[in-house]
């Protein structure tokens, strides 16, 4: 199950970080 946890965790962190970076960059542009 550790491998499954690692797979889900890596996915959540990478997609979450990229989504936040997009949102943050778009907010800075809108200012």
């Amino acid at each position: 199950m550790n491998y499954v946890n690692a797979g889900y965790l890596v996915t959540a962190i990478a997609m979450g970080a990229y989504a936040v970076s997009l949102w943050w960059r778009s907010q800075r542009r809108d200012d």
Partner: protein
Amino acid sequence: MKQLTRRALGPLALASSVATFVMGYFITPPDVVQGELARLVYIHPAQAWVALYLSFGTATIASALYLWPRTRSMVADRVAESAVEVSTLFIGLTLLTGSIWGRPTWGVWWVWDARLTSTAVLGVLMLGYLALRRANDDAQVRAKRSAVFAILTAVNVPIIHFSVMWWKTLHQGATVFTQNRDLKIHGSMAWTLLLSFIAFSLNFAWMVRARYRIADHEAAERDSELDNALKARRTESVS
């Protein structure tokens, strides 16, 4: 309606991702052969689908539209740029989750197998595309070179797709789109797999849209800077 679809995209992507996680992690049963490890099937194939087919398909079509004189526009160039950036993220994730799955099933984190190697090559080519975009300041030249590069890179996609049929590989063959069309996954596992494809596709759509908006703002900023510089130059020459 367009506005509603635009606003609903983010919440829909998030809700379907949470639903995929709950279904894949808690509700679906473990597999007869792979046990709990089979839960990785709800993330890894959908990531590959987005990276290879959805993102790269979008980038290739947008690049072709840019190169075709009748449909040439900077909109197509920005769509291609956005899709390739998102594709790079998903290729990275596909390789990572594939490696995490490979360790307990094959006994190794990485093997120079046809499917894995061709996917890694595409990842490197995508980084090359992003580097190429930063190598030229002229928007038209950059767009043209990037479009040609993207189309040449697209040759690798069918190689990756058919690699499990053309060569002997450790990577398993097709589960859904088999040659005889006999589905190798059933019940709640099949529905969750379908849900994961929908969730990752919605995430792709939201990300490309957000990235496109940033590219659009950047281009508008560059244009206004250029206008201001030209105005300043004209004022100088008059006075």
